[in-house]
C-alpha cells in the first residue's frame, strides 16, 4: 500500500500542531542566538553556519562533520524533542485557540513566525537579505500563479510589471524624500517618508495594473501562445522604455532608495499579499478564473463575464507584482532595467511551476524552496545552474503541474490541533 510507505515517519511527526512547530523553531533559533557562537567554536567552525551548514559543507568538505553536528544539536534534536514533549500541551493550546476567532489565532501564529524569522536574521545581514528576498519572491510567485495557474494563461510579462512598480516606487521615495542628483532636493522631510512609503507602494501597484491593461485587452480575443507573445512584447517594451527614459537614469539605473523596506514592512506586505490573493482565488471570482481556464466558451455560457474576469485577474496579479517590485527596489537599493529581463522571467516562471499551479501553498513552497536551493548551492558556482535546471526538469517529468498543485489553502485546517494518527486497519 502506498499510504503505508512513510507511515512510521509520518506517525512520529503527526501529533504536533502548527503552534508546536513554530514555538519549537523559535526555541531552536533562541538557542542559536544564545550559544551559537561558542558552540560553533567548539565544533571547529569559523562562524555560525548561515544556511543550516550546507554552504559550509560544500565549500570545505573537511568541516562536514562539524556542520552536521551543529545542525543536529542546535536545530534538529531540540525541535524534535520540544515538539514531542510539549505535544500534549500544544494540542491543548491549539484547541483553545481554535475556539477563539480565527484572526486572533492566525495573528498569534504569525507573531511567533515573525519573531522566529527576526531572531534568525539577527545572526547575519546575509540572512536578513535572504529572508526579505524570499518574502518578495513569495509575493511574485503568488501573483504570477493567479494568471498562469488559476487562469491558465502563459503570461511572460511579470518582469515588466515588476519594473513598473519598482520604478514608480523608487521615483516616489527618491524624488520626494531624498536629495538626489537626478531629482534634486527633497520636497518633503524624510521623517514622514517612512509613513508615506505604503502609499508609494500602492501607487506602484496601481501603475503596474494599469500597464496590465495592455496585456489584458488583447487577451479578450486570443489566448495561449499569442498571449504569451503579447506579454513578452510588453516586457520588452517596458524594459526598452525605461532604458530610454533619461529622467530615471536610463540604462545606468536608479540608486539611492532609502532603507525603508525593513523586515517588518516586507513581512506585513507579504502576509497581506498571501491573505488577499488567497481570498481572491477562493472567492466567486477565483472560481470564475478556473472556469475560464478549463473552458472559456462553457464559462461564458454559464454567465461568467470572461472579459471582466480576465481583466481583473491581470490587473490583480500585476498589482501585487508591482508592489513586490517596489519592495525589491528598496531592499536592493539599486535597480536598472537589466534587472527585469529574461533572466528574471525564467526565475519567476521556474518558481511558479516548481511549487505548483493553482495553489497558494505551492507558490510559497516554490518560492522558498527555489530561493533556499539557489543560495545553498552557491558555492558550486556555475554548476548550480546545471543542478537547479535538472531538478526542475525532474519535477516537471514526474509531477507536471508542480510539487503541490491544486490544493486549497485553509488556514483553520493548518492551525487546528493534531491528533495522533491512529493505526489504520
Amino acid at each position, binding site marked *: 500500500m502506498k499510504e503505508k510507505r512513510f507511515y512510521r515517519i509520518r506517525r512520529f511527526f503527526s501529533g504536533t500542531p502548527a503552534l508546536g512547530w513554530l514555538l519549537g523553531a523559535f526555541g531552536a533559533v533562541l538557542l542559536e542566538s544564545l550559544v551559537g557562537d561558542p558552540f560553533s567554536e567548539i565544533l571547529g567552525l569559523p562562524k555560525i553556519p548561515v544556511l543550516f551548514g550546507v554552504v559550509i559543507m560544500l565549500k570545505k568538505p573537511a568541516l562536514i562533520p562539524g556542520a552536521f553536528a551543529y545542525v543536529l544539536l542546535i536545530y534538529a534534536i531540540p525541535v524534535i524533542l520540544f515538539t514531542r514533549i510539549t505535544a500534549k500541551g500544544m494540542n491543548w493550546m491549539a484547541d483553545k485557540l481554535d475556539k477563539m476567532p480565527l484572526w486572533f489565532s492566525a495573528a498569534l501564529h504569525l507573531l511567533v513566525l515573525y519573531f522566529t524569522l527576526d531572531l534568525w536574521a539577527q545572526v547575519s545581514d546575509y540572512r536578513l537579505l535572504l529572508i526579505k528576498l524570499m518574502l518578495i519572491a513569495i509575493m511574485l510567485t503568488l501573483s504570477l500563479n493567479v494568471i498562469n495557474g488559476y487562469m491558465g494563461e502563459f503570461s511572460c510579462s511579470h518582469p515588466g510589471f515588476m519594473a513598473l512598480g519598482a520604478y514608480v516606487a523608487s521615483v516616489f521615495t527618491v524624488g520626494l524624500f531624498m536629495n538626489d542628483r537626478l531629482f534634486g532636493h527633497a520636497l518633503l522631510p524624510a521623517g514622514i517618508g517612512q509613513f508615506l512609503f505604503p502609499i508609494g507602494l500602492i501607487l506602484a501597484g496601481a501603475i503596474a495594473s494599469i500597464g496590465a491593461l495592455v496585456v489584458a*485587452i*488583447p487577451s479578450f480575443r486570443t489566448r495561449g501562445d499569442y498571449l504569451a*507573445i503579447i506579454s*513578452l512584447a510588453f516586457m520588452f517594451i517596458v524594459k526598452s*522604455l525605461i532604458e530610454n527614459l533619461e529622467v530615471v537614469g536610463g540604462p545606468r539605473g536608479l540608486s539611492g532608495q532609502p532603507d525603508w523596506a525593513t523586515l517588518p514592512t516586507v513581512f506585513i506586505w507579504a502576509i497581506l499579499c498571501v491573505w488577499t490573493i488567497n481570498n481572491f482565488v477562493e472567492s466567486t471570482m477565483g472560481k470564475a478564473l478556473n472556469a475560464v481556464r478549463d473552458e*472559456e466558451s462553457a464559462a461564458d455560457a454559464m454567465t461568467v463575464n470572461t472579459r471582466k474576469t480576465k481583466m481583473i485577474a491581470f490587473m490583480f496579479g500585476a498589482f501585487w507584482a508591482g508592489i513586490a517590485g517596489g519592495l525589491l527596489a528598496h531592499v536592493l537599493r539599486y535597480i536598472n532595467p537589466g534587472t527585469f529581463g529574461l533572466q528574471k522571467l525564467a526565475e519567476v516562471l521556474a518558481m511558479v511551476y516548481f511549487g505548483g499551479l493553482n495553489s497558494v501553498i505551492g507558490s510559497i513552497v516554490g518560492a522558498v524552496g527555489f530561493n533556499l536551493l539557489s543560495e545553498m548551492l552557491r558555492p558550486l558556482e*556555475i554548476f548550480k545552474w*546545471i543542478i537547479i535546471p535538472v531538478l526542475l526538469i525532474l519535477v*516537471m517529468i514526474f509531477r*507536471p503541474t508542480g510539487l503541490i498543485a491544486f490544493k486549497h489553502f485553509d488556514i483553520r485546517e493548518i492551525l487546528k490541533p493534531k491528533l495522533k494518527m491512529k493505526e489504520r486497519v
Partner: protein
Amino acid sequence: MTFTFFFQNVVNALQWGSFYALIALGYAMVYSILMLFNFAHGDIFMVGSYIGFGVATGLLYLVTSGFIPLPHWLVLVLTIVISMFLTSFVGVIVERIGYRPLRNAPRASAAITGLMIGIILETGNLALLGARRLNFPSLIMSRTYEIGGVFVTNKKILVVLVSIGLMLALDQFVRKTKWGMAMRAMSYDFVVVPLMGVSIDVIAPLTFAIGSGLAAAGGVLYGIAYPILDPYMGILIGWKAFVAAILGGRGSIMGAALAGFLLGFIEIFVAMIFPSTLRDLIAFSIVLAILTFRPYGFFGKPYSAKLRL
C-alpha cells in the same frame, strides 16, 4: 534619406532577417507537429554556432597543416554541413529528455523544461569552455562590392543566399518527400495519424533534428557575419525568432520565414529612422499592434480557443 541609404539598409535587413527566419523555422516546425514551442531553440542556435566554430577550426588546421588539401569554398560548405549534422543530434537529445516524457503533460510544463534545457546548454558551455569569448575563424576573405553606391560584402550575399536556399530545400522536403508527407500528416492530426502506422516517436525527433540543423546553419552564418561567440548569444535572438514564429502564424513554416525577414526589416528600419536605443521599443510595439489586430498571425488559422492547454 537617399535611395542608396535606403537600399543599404535593405541589404542589412535581409541579412539580419535571415538569422531570425532560420531560427523561427525550427520553432514553427516543432510547433506544427507537437503544438509545443521548443524554448531551448535559441540555445541550440548557440550550440550550433560553437560546433561550427569547432568544425571550422579543425578543418582549417587540417588544411593549413597540409593533411588534406581542400579549396576554401569546400571548407565553408563542409563546415556548414557538418555542423548542421552534428547539431541535429543535439535537437534529438533535447526531444528525448525534455519533450517526450512530457508529451501528455500540460503544455506550460514542457515550456519550462525547454527553458531549463536552454539554461543547461548555456551553463554547460560556460563550464566547458570558460567565460572567454571565442573568435570565429574567418572562412572567407571579406570582399566589398559597390553596386550603384550600395556597399555589399560577400559575407552578406553568402548569408542571404544560403538561408534562402535552405528554406527552399526545406519547402521541397516537406512537400515532395515521403518524410515530409508524414510530417504534414502529423501536423494535421497527431492523434489519428499514429494509428495509420506513422510513429510520432520517429517524426518528432526528425522535426527537432531538421529544426536544429537549420538553427546550426544560422549559427555558422552568424559566426561568419559577427565573428564573436559567447554562451548567451542565443537567448535574445532566440526569443525574437520565437516572436517571429508566432507573428507568421503558429505552425506555418513559410509564414515563420517571412515573419523572420519582416522582423529583421522592422528592426533595421526603426534603427535607421529613430535613435537605435529605441529599436526594441518600437519594434515590439509594432509586433503588439499587429497581434492586437490580427491575433492569429499572418498565415495562421483561427483555431478553437482550446488546444491542448
